[in-house]
């Protein structure tokens, strides 16, 4: 399987403080990479760099053999989609959020596609008109994830998407991520603190104080 994403000596400095230092790794197509590490170590910053929401201070991010900086930013982010840590929902209703990916592509809203996705994550068609403030944290997180994958990206960057969720929501989200990875052939980079996710990780990296630590096998056990 080919390499879809390659980072070479990526560093990021903001306000004179180095947040990421010399990070290099590559991700194969359809790989499921798990990243963990202490709070404030730079995990979210790394995902922002990969999704081109910020540009690395030095080093390169290559997507499909081409520097991320050589892509049109909007087009790039549709292929390398970042789901925020604690995402905010837009507008008033669940529907407002699910129409958004269609609107920005100037496509008519596909109700069936949206309800199918909702049902896949344990919500229903009736929830489309639900007010976003009436959703639980877990439900919000699921709606947010659907926003990212209604038009499947090549790479999904999931930033602590199960943090603070109850067990049911957590399980549903895990199932969705697995499904996207295995059935939809999506490459996944998932940042997490979740023990079971770390335990089950096919490949686990640690970020500590802005540096990448590739654990040895016995650490991974």
């Amino acid at each position, binding site marked *: 399987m080919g390499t879809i994403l390659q980072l070479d000596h990526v560093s990021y400095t903001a306000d004179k403080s180095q947040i990421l230092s010399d990070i290099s790794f590559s991700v194969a197509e359809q790989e499921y990479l798990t990243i963990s590490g202490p709070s404030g170590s730079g995990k979210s910053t790394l995902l922002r760099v990969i999704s081109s929401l*910020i540009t690395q201070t030095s080093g390169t991010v290559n997507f499909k053999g081409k520097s991320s900086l050589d892509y049109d930013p909007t*087009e790039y*982010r549709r292929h390398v989609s970042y789901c925020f840590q604690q995402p905010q929902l837009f507008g008033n209703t669940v529907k407002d959020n699910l129409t958004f990916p269609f609107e*920005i*592509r100037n496509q008519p809203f596909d109700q069936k596609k949206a309800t199918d996705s909702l049902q896949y994550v344990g919500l229903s068609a009736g929830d489309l008109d639900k007010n976003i403030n009436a959703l639980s944290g877990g439900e919000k997180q699921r709606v947010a994830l659907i926003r990212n994958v209604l038009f499947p990206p090549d790479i999904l960057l999931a930033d602590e998407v199960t943090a603070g969720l109850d067990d049911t929501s957590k399980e549903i989200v895990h199932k969705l991520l697995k499904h996207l990875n295995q059935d939809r052939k999506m490459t996944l980079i998932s940042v997490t603190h979740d023990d079971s996710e770390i335990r089950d990780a096919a490949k686990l990296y640690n970020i500590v104080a802005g540096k990448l630590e590739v654990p040895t096998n016995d650490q991974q056990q």
Partner: protein
Amino acid sequence: MINSNNFILMGAMNTKNLQVSPFSLVLAASLVLVAVLISQWQKLGLTKDLLVAAIRAVIQLTIVGFILKYIFRINNAWLTGLMILFIIFNAAYNAHKRAAGIPKSFPISLIAIFTATILSLVILVVTGAVKFIPSQTIPITGMIAGQAMVADGLAYRSLNSSFHDRREQVLEKLALGANVKQASEGIIRDSIKNGMAPSIDSVKTMGIVNLPGMMSGLMFAGVDPLQAVEYQIMTVFMILATTSLSAFIAVYLAYKQFYNDRDQLVRD
């Protein structure tokens, strides 16, 4: 219908009713003392500001009076045009100062205020509502450009606060693959609205709560109230057109300054 022959804004007005002698002005200056006394008594710390403001007003207005007198008298189209540009330039500079650091806010304000002001002015002159003579075009330009300046200043403030408050949401929209325009849509709309809102409000209450300055001025100078109202109605149309156009242009040029060439949000 507005009869432009009777449009006597500042030029050959009936001055019989208007005689302020220098002596009565000096007496009127004692009104400033009322403000100063309140400031002293209530320890507002505004005494110096008040005095400076009053003195500045006297000096500035006197200079403007002499300049306008000169311009009105020689009635030269080039000089009038230059004065119009000068007013627009000043309005743009003031709008720019209210932009709190939005890059390129001066050229943006200049484009917005110039376009809106000139368009309104051209329509007024072409329709014959206003004559292209300094005593009519200069005060009108001042009014239009002033309104545009206020609208743009408010629109900038709204852009700054909205991009700050909704930063996370904008970032998420970008991450979902929205372009900068799509990611800023709500902010653009609200900022144009906020720029226009005060002029719409003032127009709504016109004649009920406030007697607008132009109309008051005309009546002060002895013009028939109904005729003064005709001009005021014209001003209302002009204000609505100018503020909306100016705020629209300013916002559409300014929101892009919040992003860099990689479509990343750079200001908050």
